[in-house]
């Protein structure tokens, strides 16, 4: 089945891409002006460059990021992927957000395509351990949680930093996978690069 991945350049969509890798034909990115969007990860400035390294074409659609309008923009982007790359399904990196997941499910349903969420409800620690094990090189680009100061920005999540993050997430009770925007990440290298 030909698939498109909703790709932000962060760790979750990169890992979702890895899981579906043999069937992925295109990356789909929403460039949101709203830095606090519940739907889309920001910043996404490296996505163009990443699509070249991954060797997959990119569909990038701009959105103002207003709550329901951004869903229409996402629908447009997916429609474009259906028309240009004949995709029959979309893959997302949704882990725990029912807000995000159900909205994407509705769009896929309206467009009569499959929706795949291979990281759905995954244990957050397990998720990060797998990513590190698979030798993804993931850099932290934004932090927003008690217990995470600015010194974390620019750090790569290697085994040592992962252990430190696990300890901090338990102490300060934040989501280690960054599902609530506590940590934003960017992929530098990994098994999806060709």
């Amino acid at each position, binding site marked *: 089945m030909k698939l498109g991945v909703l790709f932000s350049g962060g760790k979750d969509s990169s890992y979702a891409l890895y899981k579906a890798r043999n069937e992925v034909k295109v990356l789909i990115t929403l460039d949101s002006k709203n830095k606090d969007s519940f739907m889309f990860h920001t910043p996404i400035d490296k996505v163009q460059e990443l699509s070249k390294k991954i060797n997959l074409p990119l569909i990038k659609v701009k959105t103002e990021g207003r709550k329901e309008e951004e869903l229409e923009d996402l629908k447009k982007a997916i429609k474009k992927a259906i028309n240009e790359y004949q995709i029959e399904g979309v893959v997302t990196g949704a882990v725990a957000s029912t807000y995000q997941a159900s909205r994407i499910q509705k769009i896929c*349903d309206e467009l009569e395509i*499959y929706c795949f969420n291979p990281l759905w*409800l995954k244990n957050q620690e397990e998720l990060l351990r797998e990513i590190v094990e698979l030798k993804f090189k993931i850099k932290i680009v934004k932090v927003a949680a008690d217990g995470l100061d600015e010194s974390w920005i620019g750090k790569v999540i290697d085994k040592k930093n992962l252990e430190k993050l696990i300890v901090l997430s338990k102490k300060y009770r934040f989501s280690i996978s960054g599902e609530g925007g506590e940590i934003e990440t960017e992929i530098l290298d990994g098994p999806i690069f060709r």
Partner: protein
Amino acid sequence: MILVVKVNEFELHDDEFVKPVTDLLENFKVVDYREISKKDLDEAEKIIICGTALKDNKYFENLDKFSWLKNFKKPVLGICAGMQIIAEVLGYKIIKNKKIGVFENRYHLHSFSVEGFDDKLEIMNFKGYLFHPEVLNKELIREFALG
């Protein structure tokens, strides 16, 4: 041992519809619905039939693979598509009813439901949830496993 019956057509859906259920269990075996053996049924203490994706209705064409349900006496839990399968095999009518999202703290992801039932079903040894308890109501799966 709890036998976890996988209904999804595509392997890429395993992590979304099967793993979140097995993550809540201790002693289980996963089997594709087309490959259930008599030995699996004999060895299982209970059975959970998982759900699948909105567009994935392949199992409707293969309902004969669930005919074992008719004479099965041990506890069976059906999640979403699993509940629809139980109902259909037991002779109830499936009707169109699309619901996607969180309603009253339950995560729904279905295009059909069972005529005469809301989002739950309880008939003899059979139990069904039309919503996905593994998302927001994990205790329901744990209760079934331990009860």
